[in-house]
Protein backbone atom coordinates (compact mmCIF):
# COMPACT_ATOMS: atom_id res chain seq x y z
CA UNK A 1 0.00 0.00 0.00
CA UNK A 2 1.16 3.52 -0.74
CA UNK A 3 -0.13 6.31 1.54
CA UNK A 4 0.32 9.00 -1.10
CA UNK A 5 -1.71 7.08 -3.69
CA UNK A 6 -4.45 6.43 -1.14
CA UNK A 7 -4.66 10.08 -0.12
CA UNK A 8 -4.57 11.24 -3.73
CA UNK A 9 -7.51 9.03 -4.69
CA UNK A 10 -9.56 10.08 -1.67
CA UNK A 11 -8.90 13.76 -2.46
CA UNK A 12 -9.79 13.17 -6.10
CA UNK A 13 -13.08 11.45 -5.22
CA UNK A 14 -14.12 13.97 -2.59
CA UNK A 15 -13.58 16.91 -4.94
CA UNK A 16 -15.63 15.46 -7.79
CA UNK A 17 -18.98 17.34 -7.80
CA UNK A 18 -20.81 14.58 -9.67
CA UNK A 19 -19.64 11.86 -7.28
CA UNK A 20 -20.46 14.05 -4.29
CA UNK A 21 -23.96 14.70 -5.64
CA UNK A 22 -24.55 10.95 -6.03
CA UNK A 23 -23.05 10.37 -2.58
CA UNK A 24 -25.46 12.84 -0.97
CA UNK A 25 -28.41 11.20 -2.76
CA UNK A 26 -27.34 7.66 -1.82
CA UNK A 27 -26.79 8.81 1.75
CA UNK A 28 -30.02 10.79 2.14
CA UNK A 29 -32.78 8.84 0.39
CA UNK A 30 -32.41 5.61 2.40
CA UNK A 31 -32.33 7.66 5.62
CA UNK A 32 -35.58 9.37 4.59
CA UNK A 33 -37.12 5.92 4.10
CA UNK A 34 -35.92 4.90 7.57
CA UNK A 35 -37.45 8.07 9.01
CA UNK A 36 -40.74 7.49 7.18
CA UNK A 37 -40.99 3.79 7.98
CA UNK A 38 -38.98 2.85 11.10
CA UNK A 39 -40.38 -0.71 10.95
CA UNK A 40 -38.08 -1.40 7.99
CA UNK A 41 -35.08 -1.19 10.37
CA UNK A 42 -31.71 -1.29 8.62
CA UNK A 43 -33.14 -2.93 5.49
CA UNK A 44 -33.39 0.44 3.74
CA UNK A 45 -29.76 1.39 4.33
CA UNK A 46 -28.16 -1.55 2.53
CA UNK A 47 -26.37 0.93 0.28
CA UNK A 48 -22.73 -0.05 0.62
CA UNK A 49 -22.80 -1.47 -2.92
CA UNK A 50 -24.00 1.89 -4.26
CA UNK A 51 -21.28 3.71 -2.30
CA UNK A 52 -18.75 1.31 -3.82
CA UNK A 53 -19.99 2.24 -7.31
CA UNK A 54 -19.88 5.96 -6.52
CA UNK A 55 -16.34 5.91 -5.15
CA UNK A 56 -15.01 3.05 -7.27
CA UNK A 57 -16.26 3.66 -10.82
CA UNK A 58 -13.23 4.16 -13.03
CA UNK A 59 -10.76 3.14 -10.31
CA UNK A 60 -8.08 2.38 -12.90
CA UNK A 61 -9.96 3.05 -16.13
CA UNK A 62 -10.14 6.80 -15.58
CA UNK A 63 -6.40 6.99 -14.93
CA UNK A 64 -5.83 4.96 -18.11
CA UNK A 65 -8.02 7.14 -20.33
CA UNK A 66 -6.76 10.42 -18.89
CA UNK A 67 -3.11 9.44 -19.33
CA UNK A 68 -2.39 9.70 -15.60
CA UNK A 69 -1.53 6.00 -15.38
CA UNK A 70 1.16 6.29 -18.05
CA UNK A 71 2.77 9.20 -16.19
CA UNK A 72 2.39 7.56 -12.80
CA UNK A 73 3.96 4.29 -13.85
CA UNK A 74 6.89 6.16 -15.37
CA UNK A 75 7.80 6.84 -11.73
CA UNK A 76 9.15 4.12 -9.45
CA UNK A 77 5.72 2.86 -8.45
CA UNK A 78 5.07 -0.86 -8.59
CA UNK A 79 1.87 -1.83 -10.41
CA UNK A 80 0.64 -4.17 -7.68
CA UNK A 81 1.11 -1.43 -5.08
CA UNK A 82 -0.79 0.99 -7.32
CA UNK A 83 -3.70 -1.44 -7.80
CA UNK A 84 -3.93 -2.42 -4.13
CA UNK A 85 -3.72 1.22 -3.01
CA UNK A 86 -6.59 2.19 -5.34
CA UNK A 87 -8.69 -0.71 -4.02
CA UNK A 88 -7.90 0.07 -0.40
CA UNK A 89 -8.67 3.79 -0.76
CA UNK A 90 -12.02 3.17 -2.46
CA UNK A 91 -12.90 0.49 0.11
CA UNK A 92 -12.01 2.84 2.95
CA UNK A 93 -14.21 5.62 1.59
CA UNK A 94 -17.06 3.19 0.93
CA UNK A 95 -16.82 1.66 4.40
CA UNK A 96 -16.73 5.11 6.05
CA UNK A 97 -19.85 6.23 4.17
CA UNK A 98 -21.69 2.99 4.97
CA UNK A 99 -20.74 3.07 8.66
CA UNK A 100 -21.85 6.70 8.92
CA UNK A 101 -25.15 5.88 7.24
CA UNK A 102 -25.86 2.96 9.57
CA UNK A 103 -24.99 5.18 12.55
CA UNK A 104 -27.36 7.90 11.35
CA UNK A 105 -30.07 5.30 10.69
CA UNK A 106 -29.65 4.00 14.25
CA UNK A 107 -30.05 7.55 15.58
CA UNK A 108 -33.17 8.12 13.47
CA UNK A 109 -34.66 4.79 14.56
CA UNK A 110 -33.99 5.66 18.22
CA UNK A 111 -35.58 9.07 17.76
CA UNK A 112 -38.65 7.45 16.16
CA UNK A 113 -39.05 5.06 19.09
CA UNK A 114 -37.71 1.97 17.29
CA UNK A 115 -34.36 1.82 19.06
CA UNK A 116 -32.33 -0.98 17.43
CA UNK A 117 -30.59 -3.65 19.51
CA UNK A 118 -26.84 -2.95 19.95
CA UNK A 119 -26.19 -6.36 18.37
CA UNK A 120 -28.19 -5.39 15.28
CA UNK A 121 -26.12 -2.22 14.85
CA UNK A 122 -22.91 -4.22 15.28
CA UNK A 123 -24.01 -6.80 12.69
CA UNK A 124 -25.03 -4.03 10.29
CA UNK A 125 -21.65 -2.31 10.65
CA UNK A 126 -19.72 -5.55 10.22
CA UNK A 127 -21.80 -6.50 7.16
CA UNK A 128 -21.32 -3.09 5.57
CA UNK A 129 -17.57 -2.92 6.15
CA UNK A 130 -17.00 -6.38 4.66
CA UNK A 131 -19.36 -5.53 1.82
CA UNK A 132 -17.39 -2.31 1.16
CA UNK A 133 -14.06 -4.15 0.92
CA UNK A 134 -15.75 -6.92 -1.08
CA UNK A 135 -17.73 -4.97 -3.68
CA UNK A 136 -14.75 -2.83 -4.67
CA UNK A 137 -12.50 -5.80 -5.53
CA UNK A 138 -14.42 -7.02 -8.64
CA UNK A 139 -14.82 -3.38 -9.66
CA UNK A 140 -11.03 -3.02 -9.58
CA UNK A 141 -10.72 -6.12 -11.76
CA UNK A 142 -13.25 -4.82 -14.30
CA UNK A 143 -11.58 -1.41 -14.26
CA UNK A 144 -8.40 -2.95 -15.66
CA UNK A 145 -10.34 -3.98 -18.79
CA UNK A 146 -12.16 -0.79 -19.69
CA UNK A 147 -11.28 2.88 -19.97
CA UNK A 148 -13.20 5.58 -18.10
CA UNK A 149 -16.07 4.32 -15.99
CA UNK A 150 -16.80 1.47 -18.37
CA UNK A 151 -16.19 -0.89 -15.44
CA UNK A 152 -19.56 0.04 -14.01
CA UNK A 153 -21.33 -0.77 -17.29
CA UNK A 154 -19.45 -4.04 -17.55
CA UNK A 155 -20.38 -4.91 -13.96
CA UNK A 156 -24.09 -4.25 -14.56
CA UNK A 157 -23.98 -6.24 -17.79
CA UNK A 158 -22.41 -9.28 -16.10
CA UNK A 159 -24.80 -8.92 -13.16
CA UNK A 160 -27.74 -8.97 -15.58
CA UNK A 161 -26.32 -12.06 -17.26
CA UNK A 162 -26.23 -13.71 -13.82
CA UNK A 163 -29.90 -12.80 -13.34
CA UNK A 164 -30.80 -14.21 -16.76
CA UNK A 165 -28.97 -17.45 -15.93
CA UNK A 166 -30.95 -17.71 -12.69
CA UNK A 167 -34.23 -17.14 -14.51
CA UNK A 168 -33.28 -19.73 -17.13
CA UNK A 169 -32.23 -22.20 -14.43
CA UNK A 170 -35.54 -21.73 -12.63
CA UNK A 171 -37.58 -21.96 -15.81
CA UNK A 172 -35.81 -25.05 -17.17
CA UNK A 173 -35.51 -26.68 -13.72
CA UNK A 174 -31.73 -26.79 -13.94
CA UNK A 175 -30.02 -26.44 -10.55
CA UNK A 176 -26.60 -26.13 -12.21
CA UNK A 177 -27.62 -23.13 -14.33
CA UNK A 178 -29.46 -21.61 -11.36
CA UNK A 179 -26.35 -21.98 -9.19
CA UNK A 180 -24.13 -20.59 -11.97
CA UNK A 181 -26.28 -17.44 -12.06
CA UNK A 182 -26.01 -17.13 -8.29
CA UNK A 183 -22.24 -17.58 -8.37
CA UNK A 184 -21.86 -14.88 -11.04
CA UNK A 185 -23.83 -12.38 -8.95
CA UNK A 186 -22.11 -13.42 -5.70
CA UNK A 187 -18.71 -12.92 -7.34
CA UNK A 188 -19.62 -9.36 -8.31
CA UNK A 189 -20.98 -8.47 -4.89
CA UNK A 190 -19.02 -10.39 -2.27
CA UNK A 191 -20.48 -9.91 1.19
CA UNK A 192 -20.80 -11.72 4.48
CA UNK A 193 -24.02 -11.83 6.48
CA UNK A 194 -22.57 -12.11 9.97
CA UNK A 195 -25.96 -12.93 11.47
CA UNK A 196 -25.94 -16.03 9.26
CA UNK A 197 -22.32 -16.93 9.97
CA UNK A 198 -22.73 -16.65 13.73
CA UNK A 199 -26.31 -17.99 13.71
CA UNK A 200 -27.46 -21.56 14.25
CA UNK A 201 -26.70 -22.61 10.67
CA UNK A 202 -23.08 -21.48 10.35
CA UNK A 203 -22.16 -21.33 6.69
CA UNK A 204 -18.41 -21.50 6.03
CA UNK A 205 -19.22 -21.29 2.36
CA UNK A 206 -20.38 -17.71 2.99
CA UNK A 207 -16.96 -16.73 4.41
CA UNK A 208 -14.91 -18.71 1.89
CA UNK A 209 -16.92 -17.37 -1.06
CA UNK A 210 -16.28 -13.83 0.12
CA UNK A 211 -12.55 -14.30 0.67
CA UNK A 212 -12.18 -16.22 -2.59
CA UNK A 213 -13.97 -13.54 -4.65
CA UNK A 214 -11.92 -10.73 -3.12
CA UNK A 215 -8.50 -12.40 -3.42
CA UNK A 216 -9.21 -13.70 -6.92
CA UNK A 217 -10.36 -10.27 -8.10
CA UNK A 218 -7.30 -8.55 -6.64
CA UNK A 219 -4.85 -11.14 -7.97
CA UNK A 220 -6.35 -11.08 -11.48
CA UNK A 221 -6.48 -7.28 -11.47
CA UNK A 222 -2.73 -7.14 -10.72
CA UNK A 223 -1.93 -9.80 -13.33
CA UNK A 224 -3.90 -7.93 -16.01
CA UNK A 225 -2.40 -4.57 -15.01
CA UNK A 226 1.08 -6.12 -15.22
CA UNK A 227 0.36 -7.27 -18.76
CA UNK A 228 -1.03 -3.90 -19.83
CA UNK A 229 1.21 -2.07 -22.30
CA UNK A 230 0.81 1.66 -21.92
CA UNK A 231 1.83 4.03 -24.64
CA UNK A 232 2.09 7.80 -24.41
CA UNK A 233 0.63 7.95 -27.90
CA UNK A 234 -2.33 5.75 -27.05
CA UNK A 235 -5.77 7.17 -26.44
CA UNK A 236 -6.68 4.40 -24.00
Amino acid at each position, binding site marked *: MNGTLITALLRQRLTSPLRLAFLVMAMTFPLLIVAADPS*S*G*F*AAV*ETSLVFAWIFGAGMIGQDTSSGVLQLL*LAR*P*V*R*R*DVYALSRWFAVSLATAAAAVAQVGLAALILSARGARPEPGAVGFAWANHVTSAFGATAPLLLLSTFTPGIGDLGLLWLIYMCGGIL*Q*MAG*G*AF*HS*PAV*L*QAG*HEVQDFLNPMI*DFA*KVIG*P*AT*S*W*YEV*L*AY*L*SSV*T*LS*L*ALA*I*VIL*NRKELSYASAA
Partner: protein
Amino acid sequence: MPPPPELPRGPSRRAPLLLLVIAAALLVARIGSGVWEGRHPPDLPDRMPWHGIASAEADSRASGRLVLYDFSAAWCGPCRQMATEVFADETSARKLGAMFVPVHVVDRAREDGRNQPDVQALEDRFRIEAFPTLVVYAPDTGRHVTITGYGGAASLMQELTQATLTLRTGGGRRDSL
Protein backbone atom coordinates in the same frame (compact mmCIF):
# COMPACT_ATOMS: atom_id res chain seq x y z
CA MET B 1 21.71 19.91 -0.90
CA PRO B 2 20.02 16.87 0.66
CA PRO B 3 20.63 13.54 -1.06
CA PRO B 4 17.78 12.40 -3.30
CA PRO B 5 15.46 9.84 -1.70
CA GLU B 6 16.46 6.28 -2.40
CA LEU B 7 14.32 4.84 -5.14
CA PRO B 8 12.91 1.35 -4.81
CA ARG B 9 14.82 -1.18 -6.82
CA GLY B 10 13.50 -4.01 -8.93
CA PRO B 11 10.94 -4.23 -11.73
CA SER B 12 7.63 -2.34 -11.54
CA ARG B 13 5.70 -5.44 -12.58
CA ARG B 14 5.87 -8.11 -9.93
CA ALA B 15 3.66 -11.18 -10.24
CA PRO B 16 1.38 -11.48 -7.21
CA LEU B 17 2.42 -15.08 -6.59
CA LEU B 18 1.41 -15.26 -2.92
CA LEU B 19 -1.96 -13.66 -3.64
CA LEU B 20 -2.54 -16.06 -6.55
CA VAL B 21 -1.73 -19.07 -4.38
CA ILE B 22 -4.07 -17.85 -1.60
CA ALA B 23 -6.80 -17.08 -4.15
CA ALA B 24 -6.46 -20.54 -5.71
CA ALA B 25 -6.56 -22.24 -2.29
CA LEU B 26 -9.63 -20.24 -1.27
CA LEU B 27 -11.33 -21.04 -4.60
CA VAL B 28 -10.80 -24.77 -4.02
CA ALA B 29 -12.08 -24.42 -0.43
CA ARG B 30 -15.07 -22.43 -1.69
CA ILE B 31 -16.05 -25.09 -4.22
CA GLY B 32 -15.52 -27.86 -1.66
CA SER B 33 -17.59 -26.17 1.03
CA GLY B 34 -20.29 -25.29 -1.50
CA VAL B 35 -20.60 -28.92 -2.58
CA TRP B 36 -20.48 -30.16 1.03
CA GLU B 37 -23.06 -27.69 2.33
CA GLY B 38 -25.28 -28.44 -0.67
CA ARG B 39 -25.23 -32.15 0.20
CA HIS B 40 -25.53 -31.57 3.96
CA PRO B 41 -28.03 -28.75 4.40
CA PRO B 42 -28.40 -27.54 8.01
CA ASP B 43 -31.12 -29.41 9.85
CA LEU B 44 -33.13 -26.45 11.05
CA PRO B 45 -36.74 -26.61 12.21
CA ASP B 46 -39.32 -25.11 9.88
CA ARG B 47 -41.15 -22.61 12.11
CA MET B 48 -43.85 -21.62 9.63
CA PRO B 49 -47.47 -22.42 10.52
CA TRP B 50 -48.19 -23.94 7.10
CA HIS B 51 -51.80 -24.54 6.05
CA GLY B 52 -53.04 -27.17 3.61
CA ILE B 53 -53.80 -26.28 -0.02
CA ALA B 54 -57.43 -27.34 0.30
CA SER B 55 -58.23 -25.29 3.39
CA ALA B 56 -56.12 -22.18 2.68
CA GLU B 57 -58.74 -20.01 1.03
CA ALA B 58 -61.37 -20.79 3.66
CA ASP B 59 -58.83 -20.07 6.41
CA SER B 60 -57.98 -16.80 4.69
CA ARG B 61 -61.62 -15.70 4.53
CA ALA B 62 -62.17 -16.69 8.14
CA SER B 63 -59.08 -14.89 9.45
CA GLY B 64 -59.01 -11.91 7.09
CA ARG B 65 -55.37 -12.64 6.23
CA LEU B 66 -54.09 -12.99 2.68
CA VAL B 67 -52.88 -16.36 1.38
CA LEU B 68 -49.12 -16.72 0.83
CA TYR B 69 -48.29 -19.56 -1.58
CA ASP B 70 -44.64 -20.62 -1.45
CA PHE B 71 -43.85 -22.52 -4.66
CA SER B 72 -40.59 -24.40 -4.28
CA ALA B 73 -38.80 -27.57 -5.35
CA ALA B 74 -36.40 -29.94 -3.63
CA TRP B 75 -33.66 -29.35 -6.23
CA CYS B 76 -33.86 -25.55 -5.94
CA GLY B 77 -30.90 -24.06 -4.02
CA PRO B 78 -32.37 -20.58 -3.48
CA CYS B 79 -35.54 -22.27 -2.11
CA ARG B 80 -33.40 -24.03 0.53
CA GLN B 81 -31.63 -20.76 1.26
CA MET B 82 -34.97 -19.04 1.76
CA ALA B 83 -36.17 -21.86 4.00
CA THR B 84 -33.04 -21.53 6.15
CA GLU B 85 -33.00 -17.76 6.37
CA VAL B 86 -36.72 -16.99 6.53
CA PHE B 87 -38.89 -19.99 7.38
CA ALA B 88 -36.50 -21.33 10.06
CA ASP B 89 -36.06 -17.89 11.61
CA GLU B 90 -38.38 -17.46 14.58
CA THR B 91 -38.99 -13.71 14.11
CA SER B 92 -39.62 -13.89 10.36
CA ALA B 93 -41.83 -16.98 10.68
CA ARG B 94 -43.91 -15.36 13.43
CA LYS B 95 -44.30 -12.18 11.38
CA LEU B 96 -45.31 -14.12 8.24
CA GLY B 97 -47.72 -16.28 10.24
CA ALA B 98 -49.40 -13.13 11.57
CA MET B 99 -49.59 -11.51 8.12
CA PHE B 100 -50.62 -14.46 5.96
CA VAL B 101 -52.16 -17.89 5.69
CA PRO B 102 -48.99 -19.56 4.40
CA VAL B 103 -49.15 -22.59 2.10
CA HIS B 104 -46.07 -24.61 1.09
CA VAL B 105 -46.39 -25.98 -2.45
CA VAL B 106 -43.61 -28.35 -3.53
CA ASP B 107 -43.14 -29.06 -7.23
CA ARG B 108 -42.23 -32.72 -7.91
CA ALA B 109 -42.35 -32.66 -11.72
CA ARG B 110 -38.59 -33.14 -12.02
CA GLU B 111 -38.43 -36.04 -9.57
CA ASP B 112 -41.73 -37.84 -10.28
CA GLY B 113 -42.44 -36.75 -13.85
CA ARG B 114 -45.65 -35.02 -12.78
CA ASN B 115 -47.20 -33.14 -9.89
CA GLN B 116 -50.11 -33.90 -7.61
CA PRO B 117 -53.29 -32.53 -9.27
CA ASP B 118 -53.83 -29.83 -6.63
CA VAL B 119 -50.21 -28.64 -6.94
CA GLN B 120 -50.39 -28.61 -10.74
CA ALA B 121 -53.69 -26.74 -10.66
CA LEU B 122 -52.16 -24.01 -8.48
CA GLU B 123 -49.06 -23.77 -10.70
CA ASP B 124 -51.25 -23.42 -13.80
CA ARG B 125 -53.52 -20.94 -12.12
CA PHE B 126 -50.69 -18.60 -11.10
CA ARG B 127 -48.54 -19.44 -14.17
CA ILE B 128 -45.56 -20.59 -12.11
CA GLU B 129 -42.50 -20.93 -14.33
CA ALA B 130 -39.55 -20.65 -11.92
CA PHE B 131 -38.64 -21.42 -8.33
CA PRO B 132 -38.81 -20.05 -5.75
CA THR B 133 -41.97 -18.07 -6.46
CA LEU B 134 -44.15 -16.56 -3.78
CA VAL B 135 -47.71 -15.59 -4.57
CA VAL B 136 -49.67 -13.33 -2.24
CA TYR B 137 -53.34 -13.95 -2.99
CA ALA B 138 -56.54 -12.23 -1.90
CA PRO B 139 -59.39 -14.76 -2.29
CA ASP B 140 -62.05 -12.08 -1.87
CA THR B 141 -60.94 -10.06 -4.90
CA GLY B 142 -59.23 -12.84 -6.85
CA ARG B 143 -56.14 -10.64 -7.22
CA HIS B 144 -52.56 -11.64 -6.56
CA VAL B 145 -48.97 -10.38 -6.53
CA THR B 146 -46.13 -12.64 -7.66
CA ILE B 147 -42.57 -12.48 -6.30
CA THR B 148 -40.08 -14.57 -8.26
CA GLY B 149 -36.59 -15.44 -6.98
CA TYR B 150 -34.95 -14.88 -3.64
CA GLY B 151 -32.69 -11.92 -2.97
CA GLY B 152 -32.25 -12.20 0.79
CA ALA B 153 -34.47 -12.18 3.86
CA ALA B 154 -34.64 -8.40 4.29
CA SER B 155 -35.63 -7.66 0.71
CA LEU B 156 -38.16 -10.54 0.71
CA MET B 157 -39.88 -9.17 3.83
CA GLN B 158 -40.02 -5.74 2.17
CA GLU B 159 -41.49 -7.20 -1.01
CA LEU B 160 -44.12 -9.12 0.95
CA THR B 161 -45.11 -6.01 2.90
CA GLN B 162 -45.37 -4.10 -0.38
CA ALA B 163 -47.43 -6.92 -1.93
CA THR B 164 -49.84 -6.81 1.01
CA LEU B 165 -50.25 -3.04 0.63
CA THR B 166 -50.84 -3.45 -3.11
CA LEU B 167 -53.58 -6.02 -2.61
CA ARG B 168 -55.19 -4.15 0.28
CA THR B 169 -55.48 -1.06 -1.92
CA GLY B 170 -57.12 -2.98 -4.76
CA GLY B 171 -53.99 -3.55 -6.85
CA GLY B 172 -52.44 -6.77 -8.14
CA ARG B 173 -53.23 -9.06 -11.05
CA ARG B 174 -56.36 -11.11 -11.48
CA ASP B 175 -55.70 -14.83 -11.27
CA SER B 176 -56.28 -16.85 -14.40
CA LEU B 177 -59.23 -18.86 -13.12
